[in-house]
């Protein structure tokens, strides 16, 4: 174990030494370590004075000082983004990657060596900055006692943010052959990180520091997935080739078409061969998706626990409307009802495509979470309807199952297809390049979605419009 880690350390040490030989890296690190925290100290001091001068509440600066602590920690780690974007692309551009690729290093050793090297200098700078800021606060004698847990949280959060950013940037760097291309693609890292910082800023101002643990946990999961995706698709061959810098749409379309159509000559053929094969490949994601949706219902029930409905209120009246059949008319076949079916279908399509797009950027995770939201709501309502005199099972039987028997399997299939796309991103495939693997997974997703999920949704929308109201009248008719 230690013997196999040794080459990782050899790579890391060389890279770190090399970074410290470059003044272009040292200069921003020094500025962000020494000057920037002092600037934040001045800002904090001025704010405290301002608030106190006008009789403002302490809570203003009690929130701002820890927020500035997080900012002081975050700024230096942005340097790691620059270093990691350059890590593979720069070496490829300077041709120094080839001797490394020709050495007995395993792919993961080279990858991890560089990844760790990208984190160390920036993280050191970040921790030094935090130390300078905290010392500054002590010297300023501001009325803020730094809670130890919060400082630990900030230190861990900073390390995890750095890990997420670096693991994402290293993927970008391995999938490009020039620093320019890597820089152009850096928005894939910068935009999500900016959003993340905003979320974390809200948490800091909200003052619910326990929630930071959730943010840390989520980022650890994302970092693990990114590292897994990076090592899974690390290809010596692609690093030396120029193909990955060229967006070959014709090739992409051809590959997707091959994955989607396969050898099928007719629609029947396509269903028999291609769709059934794609469904078989969902054998593992399907049960996982069932578990996720079950967990979502459980979360909904848990959220509802302890909620006492007020005697009158929006929620009670909504639940009461669910418990009766009043307003449920058996619709006659007309243009309006057909349009209703169509809109229900479109509503479901929107969820599926949203899950697909969210899943694209998060190894499937956000896509699955998006689909889980409906089931959280389902569990929440089911847990509350007994308070308006309706057993939970009756709610399911009357309101959910008639069309849910078709719709829920469709959601499970859609979620499983999104999950599989995510899994493909973190699964090594030595037969295909990362682009091919992704296009084949996209082909499978399209087969399942177009061939099975959309027709099922159409059918369920039809059932929801024409059958569910009748079942509701039958079971809840008063």
């Amino acid at each position, binding site marked *: 174990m230690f013997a196999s880690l040794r080459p990782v350390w050899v790579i890391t040490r060389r890279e770190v030494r090399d970074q410290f030989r470059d003044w272009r890296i040292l200069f921003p690190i020094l500025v962000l370590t020494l000057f920037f925290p002092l600037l934040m100290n001045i800002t904090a001091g001025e704010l405290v004075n301002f608030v106190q001068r006008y009789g403002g509440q302490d809570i203003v600066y009690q929130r701002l000082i820890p927020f500035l602590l997080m900012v002081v920690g975050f700024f230096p780690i942005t340097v790691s983004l620059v270093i990691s974007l350059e890590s593979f692309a720069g070496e490829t551009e300077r041709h120094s990657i080839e001797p490394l690729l020709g050495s*007995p290093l395993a792919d993961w050793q080279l990858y991890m060596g560089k990844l760790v090297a990208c984190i160390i200098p920036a993280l050191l700078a970040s921790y030094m900055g935090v130390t300078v800021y905290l010392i500054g606060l002590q010297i300023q004698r501001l009325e803020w006692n730094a809670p130890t847990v919060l400082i630990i949280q900030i230190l861990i959060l900073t390390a995890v943010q750095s890990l997420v950013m670096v693991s994402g940037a290293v993927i970008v760097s391995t999938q490009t052959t020039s620093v320019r291309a890597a820089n152009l693609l850096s928005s894939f890292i910068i935009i999500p990180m900016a959003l993340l910082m905003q979320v974390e800023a809200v948490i800091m101002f909200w003052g619910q520091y326990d929630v930071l643990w959730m943010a840390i946990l989520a980022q650890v999961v994302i970092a693990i997935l990114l590292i897994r995706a990076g090592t899974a698709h690390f290809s010596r061959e692609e690093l030396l080739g120029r193909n990955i810098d060229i967006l070959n749409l014709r090739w992409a379309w051809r590959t997707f078409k091959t994955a989607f159509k396969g050898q099928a000559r007719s629609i029947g053929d396509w269903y028999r061969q291609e769709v059934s094969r794609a469904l078989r490949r969902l054998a593992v994601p399907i049960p996982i998706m069932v578990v996720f949706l079950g967990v979502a219902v459980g979360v909904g029930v848990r959220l509802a626990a302890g909620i006492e409905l007020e005697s009158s209120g929006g929620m009670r009246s909504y639940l009461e409307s669910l418990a009766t059949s009043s307003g449920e008319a058996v619709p006659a076949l007309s243009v309006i009802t057909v349009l209703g079916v169509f809109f229900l279908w479109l509503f479901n399509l929107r969820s599926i495509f949203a899950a697909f797009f969210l899943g694209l950027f998060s190894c499937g995770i956000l896509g699955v979470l998006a689909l889980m939201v409906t089931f959280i709501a389902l569990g929440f309502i089911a847990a509350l309807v007994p308070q308006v005199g309706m057993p939970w099972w009756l709610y399911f039987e009357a309101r959910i199952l008639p069309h849910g028997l078709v719709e829920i399997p469709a959601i499970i299939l859609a979620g499983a297809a999104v999950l599989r796309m995510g899994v493909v991103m973190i699964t090594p495939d030595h037969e295909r390049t990362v682009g091919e693997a992704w296009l084949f997974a996209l082909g499978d997703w399209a087969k399942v979605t177009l061939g099975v999920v959309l027709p099922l949704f159409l059918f369920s929308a039809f059932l929801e419009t024409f059958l569910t109201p009748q079942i509701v009248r039958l079971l809840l008719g008063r």
Partner: protein
Amino acid sequence: MLVTENLTKKFNDFLAVDGVSLQVDAGQVLALLGPNGAGKTTTVRMLTSVLLPSCGWARVAGYDVVKQPARVRASVGVLTEQHGLYDRMPADQYLDFFGQLYSMKASTRQKRIDTLLEHFGLSGDRKRRIGEYSKGMRQKLALARALLHEPPVLLLDEPTSAMDPESARLVRDAIHDLRSAERTIVICTHNLAEAEELADQIAIIRRGKIIVRGGIAALKQSLLGPIEYEVRFAVPLDSQEIGFPPGGRLTAQGADWLRFQSDQPEGFHPQLLRSLLAQNLPVISLQEVPRSLEAVYLQAVNAPGDEVLDVR
């Protein structure tokens, strides 16, 4: 020591290497020649397990390039076409870094680094940053890197390019010295004189295919025809009729020279000299007409069709 069979590499629709079959035994030097973009570097990259073959197989130092990539890489020393050095590192640290990657012990590593830097005349500059090195020095350092772990197989891509004549001589001598019964060397080069000097056999690759393969002498014989000899005279021949003894064929004649071919030079040449002297023709020299590898190369790469000439 190095065997390939039908080694093929396809990048999307582009066939970079097309069914290359080679065998280079231990102790042999193969020169891989070919125009730019012919597939030499791709072949070398497959032999170092950096690129995976699309088809066919290769064994290097007894290891399969697909199934045992780490062992292959540990057994091979590669001098890449682009040196790929770290400009901010001093030379000794650079070699030490690669020594560690090849799992060499610290003491062995240090000894080897000292030897190689001394051998290539870089000892005095060992602490200088590589960025300050001249092109030739960089090339020598890259070669030292390839030799560091004393690999049984050496793949050298343009080993003397960008070098001044003295340094190039030094490197060629080093390659001579590296020849041993246990070592296989493959040199990719455009320098045909160098190939002729160093190689036991050559392979010419064109559009990914080996079109010519074999020993240099045999290839010359096969592509350029039988050896020609030339006799030069001290006086003009004018239109003098020359008596030519049987056993040789006159192929060309100039003002004060003639060229001929003979199947058994050891018997025919003394006989010819006696005959010429008897005819009062003062002979200055009799020698083989030099035939360069360049002529073989040009004939091979410009030949129409894809027929393979194998004269192993």
